[in-house]
């Protein structure tokens, strides 16, 4: 067993597990678990721990959009240069360079459709290298980071069976 990989798998399933429970499941000592997690954090493998939120259950507006971005590079500008600039905006929740018909896939979050639209048109589109943006507003979420947003998770097994 690759110890680090095993811990990463467990934390991806549930990052709130105690060190003791991580130790029990892996067969490692608690000290060893702490040491490995510290290493994973220090080396930048584990970048953070966040909640997976179904916004439907909260009051107030929350809007997500996926933005396709096309850019034009020149001798002085690389993808990373453009990415660095876009990633700085707090409205941008994720930013990836992708293969296919466009260059960057940008996730944008905001409190209203108007706010998100304005952000894209006022902050992203004017960047000199950006040649095109296509904004897709998220209409419904069914699954996020491996977690399904449905409520029929009922265990229909008999409570006791041979």
């Amino acid at each position, binding site marked *: 067993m690759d110890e680090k990989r095993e811990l990463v*798998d*467990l934390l991806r*399933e*549930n990052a709130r597990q105690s060190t003791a*429970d991580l*130790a*029990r*499941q*892996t*067969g490692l000592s608690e000290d060893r678990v702490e040491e490995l997690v510290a290493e994973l954090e220090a080396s930048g493998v584990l970048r953070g721990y966040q909640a997976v939120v179904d916004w439907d259950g909260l009051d107030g507006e929350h809007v997500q959009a996926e933005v396709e971005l096309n850019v034009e590079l020149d001798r002085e500008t690389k993808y990373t240069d453009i990415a660095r600039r876009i990633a700085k905006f707090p409205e941008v929740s994720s930013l990836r360079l992708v293969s296919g018909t466009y260059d960057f896939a940008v996730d944008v979050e905001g409190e209203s459709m108007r706010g998100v639209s304005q952000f894209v048109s006022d902050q992203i589109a004017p960047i000199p290298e950006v040649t095109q943006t296509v904004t897709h507003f998220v209409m419904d979420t069914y699954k996020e980071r491996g977690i399904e947003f449905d409520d029929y998770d009922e*265990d229909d*097994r*008999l*409570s*006791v*069976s*041979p």
Partner: protein
Amino acid sequence: MKIADRVEQVPPSGIRRFFELAEEMDDVISLGVGEPDFSAPWAARTAAIDSLERGRTSYTANRGMRELREAIQRYVRRWDLEYDPDTEILVTTGASEAVDLAMRAFVEPGDAVAVHQPSYVSYVPTVTFAGGEPLTVPTYPEDDFALTYDALREAGAADAEVLMLCYPNNPTGAVMEEDGLREVAEFAREHDLAVLADEIYAGLRYEGEHTSIATLPGMRERTVVFNGFSKTHAMTGLRLGFALAPPEAIDAMNRIHQYTMLSSPTTAQYAAIEALRSCDDAVSEMRTQFDRRRRFVLSRFDEMGLDCFEARGAFYAFPDCGGDDEAFAEGLLESERVALVPGSVFGPGGEGHLRVSYATGMDELKTAMDRIERFAADWSG
């Protein structure tokens, strides 16, 4: 109507009583379940749906679809088992049907059938229904519930015609390594016993690989191997298993099967073909999850001072509760709302133990273990 004696003499399963107790209560966390908490891999389910959409609702060949038997031939090679799909493989309605067929095919009225205990609740009744006489062979906690040559000899299994063998084991989670199996095989050869090897949990071995007794010298010709899709592929409700044996044994079993079952569920056979074709990753992911839970549960029992040997198969732990297992299980259910099965339900040698199934999500498992710890701390046996 008069009920036949051989049926009357078999009492209802002891599991039934606990099931009824648990069903009456709300908010019970159950560690009493003998099946995975996962659903069958999605690809297998879509194959079943697809077969229905295409109208595949007829009988299949008695022995099962040839495509499935060929897939089974390739599948069991991982345990060094080699069987001819035309003559040596029979697809059955769950491994349970296969066990029943074998008992009826090989047991004469009054024949002794050695069954190691504690064991899965169906073997002894199946022997009785077939007209045989069950012979109890004990297994012991000090052997980690493995079957030994001495136990077979002391129990008088030399006079038996058939040995029923189940490793990895339900209810103990015990496994047998090749060394131990060699002893059992030697006994079977010396005393000319047929071996019925229920290997339904072969795919759920942790820290080591499963060895089938049929692969040991001189054993293939006297062994029927049972396996299926219920446990490893989380397909319990689809009811599909299979038997592997030399041609004359499969012929005999198929003679009963063709008149009583005709063929196993067609939809399930389509699901099984896909399960064997493309679901290895899903199966190994489930095994990984079971293994984590296994280590977690064993570690918690160790910390709370309940003696529990290191179960390395299936999805059961079998701790010693230090007293009356039925009283423990009932008390735990009433005061802490955790259902598990008292070991005595599984026959002699099970008393004083609890079968704890860890086929339950990690969050519930954590809560259940907290509750067991709280209950055990105040329990005086």
